[in-house]
């Protein structure tokens, strides 16, 4: 089932960005992905406006308590097969905000994560690298 779906995906990834209370740094670097300097569309990656259209969810931010149910909701809205990339250390471990009382994260405690992209903030190039790692992973799953 999963294999078939991978083929159906045609390896052109549609991405939805979700900010779960990040400082904006990573979030804006991810938006920059779509602009002329980095232009991920040339790699077949498209940033879309609804999780229902997306194959990949890029999550930034440490997941505040208020955003936790939203993150789950967004993840549940995505069609299978779905993949999650975490951009930025604060989503991986809390980062700068590790001892905060307002966090429900890190992200992998809430939804399953496929690729981690470290950095505070992550560079757009690093996110592209993360996307290519995901593609590699998909290819391995196929064969």
């Amino acid at each position, binding site marked *: 089932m999963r294999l078939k779906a991978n083929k159906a995906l045609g390896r052109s990834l549609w991405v939805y*960005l*979700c*900010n*779960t*209370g*990040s*400082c*904006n*740094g*990573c*979030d*804006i*670097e991810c*938006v*920059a992905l779509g*602009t*002329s*300097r980095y232009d991920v569309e040339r790699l077949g990656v498209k940033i879309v*406006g*609804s999780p229902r259209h997306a194959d990949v969810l890029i999550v930034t*931010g*440490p997941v*505040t308590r*208020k*955003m936790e149910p*939203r993150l789950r909701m*967004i993840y549940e809205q995505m069609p299978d097969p779905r993949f999650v990339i975490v951009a930025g250390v*604060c989503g991986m471990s809390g980062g*700068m*905000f590790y*001892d*905060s*009382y*307002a*966090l429900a994260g890190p992200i992998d405690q809430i939804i399953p994560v496929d690729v981690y992209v470290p950095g*505070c*903030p992550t*560079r757009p190039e690093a996110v592209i690298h993360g996307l290519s790692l995901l593609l590699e992973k998909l290819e391995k799953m196929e064969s």
Partner: protein
Amino acid sequence: MSRSITPYQTSIGPTHPAFKEPIQLVFDLCGETILKANFAPGQAHRGVEWMGTRRNPVQVLYLAERLCGICGITHSLAFARAVEQIAGIQVPPRAHYIRSIACELERIHSHLLWAGVAAHELGFDSLFYLTWRARERVMDLMEAFTGNRVHYALIQIGGVRRDLSEDMILKIKETLDYYAGVYDELRTCLLEDSSVRLRCRDVGILTATEALELCAVGPTARASGVPSDIRRDHPYAAYADVEVTSVLPNQYTGEIRGDVYDRIVVRVLELQQSVKLIRGFLDQLPEGDLLAIPKIMVLLAKLKKAEGEAVGLHEAPRGEVAHYVRMGGAETIAAWKVKASSYSNYMSWVPMLVGEQVADIPIIAASIDPCISCTDRVMLTGGGRNEVWTKEDLTRLSVAKTRRIQAKLKAEG
């Protein structure tokens, strides 16, 4: 035949493609017209201030930087200014200049970012790509200068951590020349384009009185004709040495209407102003030390003994930022309160949005350049009126009501 339309309530957000950050807006609508607007912040609350009171002032600097990923200088500078006042540290002149140069570079990057987002909200994506391409130049420059594209870690208490080399000054000058060239292009695309004008003229008006009453700051206030600017009103860093004037929209259009278009005008003009200011700073850049207390252990020992309270002000790209700090002779700071610029500007959404069309919500909301991650450090609870009704809440209420009616029926037999 007249047909009455029942008003209904709708909410946008907290995750919505029109807002890059989580915030929720709640509207009472009648057809397409907005009757009442309200907002529910707090989705990005991370408890930064509380965390700050568990770290020493130098560590807090880096935390302050991560209040917001757009204003890498803003918060650390405002915080450092407050601490310097408490501990009585004199910042060397060269550091003052480097701080001001970095502030203005940040303003260029922030305004370009905003212009791109605004163009995107208008559905004018080619302009979005154009402005973000232009923005990459200043990002590169900041990376060459400080080592990072976003969080610069440039400010240290009592000065700055990096010097401007001759090479770097040349690079800055080249970048400024580039922006002086791009400015005309941007002005044509943003201000003279008829579709932008049609969408933004007389939309989302904030009058000068409203701006004053609601304490709007920065470009939002200036677009309504309130000439407030911390750089001019309370000069700090190197701003006292150059001439800073408040940019008002009538300098370009000859009138002040306080609409979305005026807010674009102010920001575009400020790009030019920043280029001019940086040139001025570079011409006068003095020689000398970078740090008042270069040894970090000595600095920490001094800060440990410092007692008192102070407010650090700064004119961020979005307006006035204030950091209140209290230190009580301990290793960690005793209290820290941040008032971000968007916090002051949120309330102006209400008069801007009421009476407008649903389709104009994104551009009006974006026109104050809201920075949500800066602002969400306090949970607002406003006497139940700010409450957000989620679907679950409504179901719960409706079930409760059914139960009540059932119980009543039973009692009546």
